[in-house]
């Protein structure tokens, strides 16, 4: 049956594509390498890399006012998604069963729903911003729209399956998540991993010059 396919082979396939794809992309990026900086540094780069890795989670003050729409919506989406992805009871169960082998304390049901509401509001607003603002409309390519819509579809099917009583709804959610997993490594959804590399490079480089990036 198609359900068994989605729940079994397709899941393992998409998980494998995701894992290998992400590893391949990271390799693809690092392969080119970076020339050693010969200029005598003011300070070590590693500390700067770590600092930038964390400091860029917060916006620069001068950007808070002009960028507030993206910032608020962006935080809502990312924090909400993080909470519901890793701390929703069904996800914890799923991860324990299929991935980690151990579980952890999930959010109470109401908090899970609040998190998804926050994430939904954020994603919708971000998508609308992308469509409405001249800058993002100019910048955005099919990649961004496909990524946003896929994430939205995964979240929506998840929300429709909240009752956890219809196998079909769960499979639809799982299937859309599998699509996302397969698409992920080949799109700029990769920023979920590569931001670490980008921030570290920039942070290290700027720290050598004596600037807090």
């Amino acid at each position, binding site marked *: 049956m198609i359900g068994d396919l989605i729940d079994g082979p397709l899941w393992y396939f998409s998980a494998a594509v995701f894992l290998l794809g992400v590893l391949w992309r990271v390799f693809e990026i690092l392969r080119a390498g970076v020339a050693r900086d010969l200029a005598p540094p003011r300070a070590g780069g590693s500390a700067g890399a770590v600092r930038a890795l964390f400091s860029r989670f917060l916006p620069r003050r001068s950007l808070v006012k002009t960028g507030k729409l993206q910032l608020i919506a962006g935080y809502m989406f990312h924090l909400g998604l993080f909470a519901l992805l890793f701390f929703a009871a069904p996800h914890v169960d799923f991860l324990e069963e299929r991935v980690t082998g151990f579980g952890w304390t999930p959010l109470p*049901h*109401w908090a899970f*729903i609040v998190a998804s509401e926050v994430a939904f509001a954020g994603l919708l607003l971000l998508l609308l911003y992308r469509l409405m603002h001249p800058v993002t409309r100019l910048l955005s390519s099919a990649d961004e729209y496909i990524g946003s819509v896929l994430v939205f579809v995964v979240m929506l099917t998840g929300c429709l399956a*909240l*009752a956890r*009583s219809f196998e079909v709804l769960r499979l639809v959610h799982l299937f859309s998540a599998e699509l996302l997993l397969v698409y992920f490594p080949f799109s700029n959804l990769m920023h979920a991993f590569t931001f670490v590399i980008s921030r570290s490079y920039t942070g290290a480089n700027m720290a050598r010059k004596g600037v807090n990036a």
Partner: protein
Amino acid sequence: MARMKFYCDAERCIECNGCVTACKNVNEVPWGVNRRRVVTIRDGEPGERSLSVACMHCSDAPCAAVCPVDCFYTTDDGLVLHDKDICIGCGYCFYACPFGAPQFPADGAFATRGKMDKCTFCAGGPLEDNSAEEFRKYGANRLAEGKLPLCAEMCATKALLAGDADIVADIYRKRIINRGASVLNRGVSYQNATLRSPSGLSGRATSKE
């Protein structure tokens, strides 16, 4: 065909909650759900009466009428049962039921109720009789075994009667006859509490209107 009915004799019910316990036990009803309950009126006052109530298996069941997914059905025995595979836990039956029979395993925020649960007259559900799945979802199917609901079977004072309406009516009629005229002449056995005495109307007003 038989028409299954419950009858609770309020003259006999002593609010022991045995029926509630029996129901919970035989159907392994989850925590928080009570398919049957005993309600006492005028508790501790003259005229106190108790009734054990559950789903009355109405002929024109409001729950079935309002259900948006049409998950209720009436069996040949006149029982109103529902299909938990269809139920979406919306709670409409709970608003409509006059007896408060529909129960939900949860009443969490964002209307997380779970599937509705109610008295099945110990007749299980739409699944295969006495299968494990039927028991998990609906509880016991005693009717399929030729037994009556355990609540009535367990009733110590035989206040709660269950079975074919005709037989229940016969039993009750006999009781009335045996109880004699005193019962028929309402309230003589006990204190007359039909009328409320207007004792408080002779007081004085402390201010003008």
